[in-house]
């Protein structure tokens, strides 16, 4: 039990880490990774939705009629998304402004609906929780690392939660602004994906 639980949790961190292995949820990945901070924020918001929707769907999996299951999933997911939206607005307003439209769009993130359909609806709540947490943290890590690459190259600094940069090479480095612009987002993700392919699955 504990072993399989650990397996469900860790698969999201490497073997099925989105969006590198599980090529889903590309829109927020590209849009918000201009900085590490945004990446982490988006990742955590998605994790929250993933964990709770997974948990709830798994709990209700025997109650929900098959024919309307997608509609039910959507209602559940949309509810948690709106909660995140409101809470972020209330407590982390600057971040909410930066992530903008991509917070409500978590509702159409294929990862969330995909986990609900493929995993939560077939497994017990504990497993579903582990799965959601694993995938969510994996997603957060991916966004943070992509954000780090783009922020370092594109700005020459890394700044988290305001204050002074925790990493700074802008005194000798001319920022490669391509990285923080839209084209750079695609290219950076593409090349990181290639890097992950190179490292291999295990």
């Amino acid at each position, binding site marked *: 039990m504990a072993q399989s639980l650990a397996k469900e949790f860790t698969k999201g961190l490497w073997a099925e880490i989105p969006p590198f292995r599980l090529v889903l949820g590309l829109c927020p990945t590209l849009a918000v990774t201009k900085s590490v901070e945004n990446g982490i924020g988006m990742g955590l918001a998605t994790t929250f939705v993933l964990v709770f929707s997974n948990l709830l769907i798994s709990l209700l999996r025997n109650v929900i009629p098959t024919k309307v299951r997608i509609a039910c999933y959507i209602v559940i997911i949309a509810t948690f998304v709106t909660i995140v939206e409101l809470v972020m607005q209330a407590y982390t307003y600057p971040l909410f402004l930066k992530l903008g439209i991509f917070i409500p769009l978590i509702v159409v993130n294929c990862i969330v609906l995909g986990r609900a359909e493929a995993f939560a609806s077939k497994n017990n709540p504990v497993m579903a929780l582990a799965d959601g947490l694993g995938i969510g943290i994996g997603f957060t890590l991916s966004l943070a690392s992509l954000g780090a690459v783009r922020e370092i190259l594109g700005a020459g600094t890394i700044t988290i939660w305001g204050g002074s940069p925790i990493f700074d090479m802008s005194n000798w480095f*001319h*920022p*490669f*602004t*391509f*990285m923080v*612009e839209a*084209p750079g987002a695609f290219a950076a993700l593409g*090349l990181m994906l*290639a890097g992950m392919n190179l490292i291999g699955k295990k």
Partner: protein
Amino acid sequence: MNNKKLTVSHAPFWHDGDSLFKKNLNFIIALLPAAIFGVLQFGAPALGVLALSVSCAMLWELIINAVSKRPFTIGDLDAALIGLLFGMMLPAVTPWWLVVVGTFVAIFMGKMIFGGIGASPFNPALLGMAILMLSWNMFFDFDTAYVNYDFDFTALAPLVAVKFQGAATDLFPLSALFMGREVGAVGAVFSLGLIIGGIYLILRGYARWELSVSFIAGIVITAFLFHLVNPESYAGPWFHLFSGYTMLGAFFLITDSSSSPVQRIPMLIYGLLAGFMIILMRNIGSYADGTILAILLVNVVSPLLDNIRPTALGKDMSNA
């Protein structure tokens, strides 16, 4: 029976002897007049930029080949040509690291990740330039680049001047633009040299006239229409033709074979579209010289255009 080992291959057993090496060599030869002029006009730094650019491009290709364990391909001179074209698009005072990074971007992103020569749907040198210009725009400002030079002609970048001060200026006589008496990129100022090189390539069959002619036609027609509507702010077609990267584009950038269509009608549309986009970008867009992005943009359209083609012999005939 003692059999000799004969060479066995497939028909045809003749070849006209052409090769990538010869093609690229001819491109490089055709670029030389403009490159040499640039070195004479802008001095040693220009030579430095060109030399660094060519050598870095070749070195990057060599390194990438070695790392990816593919056969070495610098012998076909393609990397050298990309390097030369890239260097010719830079100002003479470009810092060394920009050349090194730029050639890497051009060779790596523009060519090698697609699988080498021919596999990339984009022109590598242009892609390198476009990414660099997006990132480090300040190094491509010709007005500040040549601030320490002492020219006997107007030391203002013509396109920038016209964009922000209007076309009613007599600072740039056509003859000066034509003869390269302007500030600009090392290899792009000498229109006459580029035209000679381009005509050489077209006559030799290495560049297609359809592309160059339609490109120039696109520029002339669009610029003429704009000029007609408002001669105060929009310069005439000849000014556009002999300033900025236009001539380099017309004969050496748009004629890059991997990224352009091969059928005649698509080639004509392709060139016209590129010319049209350039003038649009220069006159109403936010760039002073749109050549690089405009050609890159039509690169994207090229595969679609190539679907316009004649019906092959006996294709889709009823079996009568």
